[in-house]
């Protein structure tokens, strides 16, 4: 009797499963690391797509990038992958080397959306590695300069600083101690500064800024074939010296800062170097009385250069090949509807979108978009995370934190980092 009922139950279950299959809903697994407010915006886009396409169900999985990549690798070791994996252009070589993602040249050859001429050329070029295209571009994000209009007016500064001279002059006026004195004034008290000119990253964005400044000096990080550190030590020191002096010589930036956006919004700092993803927070802070604007990342040295990154979509090797067309259709839809994504602050890379009236009406973006041609990305190499990972004691993190937090000797730290990088790259 019991066996019979068990069998009946099984039959019922199986027919149920078959009935579900009959509707032929294609399920796409889509992974991305948007843990901030941008995650909600991506979810809205996914929801819209699901509503408009009854035959497809896209499941968005969001986790911080680092654990997300861990999961991506772990799943691949079991022969499984999401159907669409988002990442950053400078990380693709790592996954190409592991054999986890597939080239997209054939897709691009026939796609009506992904056409070279439709994109900002920099955004397109970044998707190539060893002559093949490996990812479909989605957006870019670069550093820019946010500034507080009220604090600038109070200091009598008319325009945001664009070079070293203007920057130091503005920084002096914007740094104020409890008695209202500026650095260089008689009796200025560095221990009682109530307003700083600018933030100073103590996380990975510290070495991102250094990388931009080093590029402004024409410096190169690795040799041509990416097998050794090729740093020009003098230039590397010069770039770090600028950042370290802002904290310890000019008192223009707080020491040991942790929450850069909050400090800017509350007026503790008058300027903020950060990415366009802070724009939504700035708009929200207008309710608290913040008046803000953006300017291009200043050119402190010889030529313009600014740190940048971006998001792209890759097609994993271990994904179900039967779903590839559906996955591609979804990515094309996202690209064509990327105006919705701009609410996250990220920068558009499609020429039609950048030229559109609706984009021009969005606050704060133009200064970023103008700098797009000058963006420099970290080198896209297979051992990217060993050298650049932000949440591990990588040579770049150690160098940056020692110089900015501990006021360590710059030349020693630069030399150490360069030696460590070469040691890492020399292991096959």
């Amino acid at each position: 009797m019991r066996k019979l009922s068990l069998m009946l139950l099984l039959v019922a279950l199986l027919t149920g499963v078959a009935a579900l299959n009959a509707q032929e809903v294609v399920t796409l697994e889509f992974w991305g690391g948007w843990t901030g407010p941008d995650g909600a915006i991506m979810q809205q886009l996914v929801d819209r797509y699901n509503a408009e396409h009854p035959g497809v169900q896209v499941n968005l999985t969001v986790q911080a990038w680092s654990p997300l990549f861990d999961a991506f690798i772990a799943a691949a070791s079991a022969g499984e992958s999401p159907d669409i994996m988002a990442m950053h252009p400078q990380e693709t070589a790592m996954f190409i080397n592991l054999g986890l993602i597939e080239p997209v040249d054939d897709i691009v050859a026939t796609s009506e959306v992904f056409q070279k001429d439709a994109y900002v050329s920099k955004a397109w070029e970044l998707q190539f590695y060893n002559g093949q295209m490996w990812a479909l571009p989605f957006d870019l994000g670069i550093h820019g300069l946010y500034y507080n209009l009220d604090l600038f007016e109070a200091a009598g500064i008319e325009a945001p600083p664009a070079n070293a001279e203007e920057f130091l002059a503005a920084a002096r006026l914007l740094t104020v101690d409890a008695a209202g004195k500026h650095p260089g004034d008689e009796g200025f008290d560095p221990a009682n500064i109530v307003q700083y000119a600018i933030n100073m990253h103590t996380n990975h964005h510290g070495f991102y800024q250094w990388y931009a400044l080093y590029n402004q000096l024409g410096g190169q990080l690795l040799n041509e074939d990416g097998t050794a550190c090729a740093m020009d030590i003098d230039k590397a020191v010069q770039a770090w010296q600028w950042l370290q002096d802002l904290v310890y010589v000019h008192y223009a930036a707080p020491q040991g800062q942790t929450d850069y956006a909050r400090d800017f919004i509350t007026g503790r700092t008058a300027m903020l170097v950060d990415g366009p993803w802070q724009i939504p927070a700035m708009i929200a802070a207008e309710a608290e009385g913040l008046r803000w604007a953006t300017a291009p990342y200043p050119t402190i040295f010889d030529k313009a250069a600014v740190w940048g990154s971006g998001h792209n979509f890759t097609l994993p090797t271990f994904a179900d090949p039967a779903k590839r067309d559906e996955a591609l259709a979804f990515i094309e839809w996202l690209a064509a509807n990327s105006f919705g994504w701009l609410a996250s602050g990220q920068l558009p890379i499609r020429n039609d979108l950048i030229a559109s009236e609706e984009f021009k009406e969005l606050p704060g973006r133009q200064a970023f978009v103008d700098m797009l041609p000058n963006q420099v990305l970290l080198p896209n190499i297979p051992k990217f995370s060993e050298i650049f990972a932000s949440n591990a004691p990588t040579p770049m993190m150690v160098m940056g934190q020692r110089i900015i937090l501990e006021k360590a000797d710059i030349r020693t730290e630069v030399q150490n980092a360069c030696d460590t990088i070469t040691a890492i790259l020399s292991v096959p």
Partner: protein
Amino acid sequence: MRILPRTAESGSYAALAGLAPKRRPSLTPYYFILPYLVFFVLFRLGPSLAGLGIAFTNWQAVGTPRFVGFANFEAMARDPRLGDAFQNTVFFALLTVPTLIVLSLALALFLNQPRRGRAVGRVVVFMPYVIMSTVVGVLWTWILDKDFGLLNVYLNFFGIANVPWLVSESTAMYGIILTTVWWTVGYNMVLFLAGLQDIPHELYEAARIDGARAWGVFRFVTLPLLAPTTFLVLMLTIINSFQVFDQVYVMTSGGPGTATLTLVQYIYTTSFQFQKFGYGSAVALILFGILVIVAFFQIRGYRRGLKGVE
């Protein structure tokens, strides 16, 4: 449906409880530990044994592992980061273990007294241990914030200037230690409380009749009879200290610089972030070796100690 057993042969509850005459060893008890055993084998024992093999290979989690002999172990000698991780872990253990033992014992003794509010006190001390490690990490990152953290607000009140805690190489590890002590002291305390309640009351009475004072009672009654518990707590605390990871991962990622890089954090980083699973497993094997040696000396010391008491 049979609910009540009819005979001992069919596996009665009496047989289960070991009251019936023993015939064949019953399989039933093993069913009870089966759920745990399955997970233990799948997620602990299996991976550990696999790690033993992986340590001798070059493996990136995907593709075929390549046997490299002792190359991973030789590479350790040339790895300055591993040295940092080892030093930091030992430093962490040296400060955390005694603090956790003494503090939890003191709390247990205090909250073992018949006094008002002791139930509330026990709950309050134990409560942090129930919180997920990631939440503890985020919470203490705020508390230890240099500029706006709660702890510095209190310290300012006593005229102490802002301590940089997690944003300075010289203080970051103390921040991690403070967090760990707050988080785990309650667990040790509960173990000590259980141990204290096992000590027969008559012994205290006898000691007092013999004229022993509080210190004497503690030194010659409580402490020796608590020895098995103390040994257990010591063992667990040392092992947990050497395996510190969650707090570090959430709060500092091993930084600033390499100031809070610990062995398990380094194993995780090299394996999962750098895809060097062979090297990561080799380091894990060394950590395992260290813990085995520590445990060996502890057990030997404990046995000698017991003989001394006898």
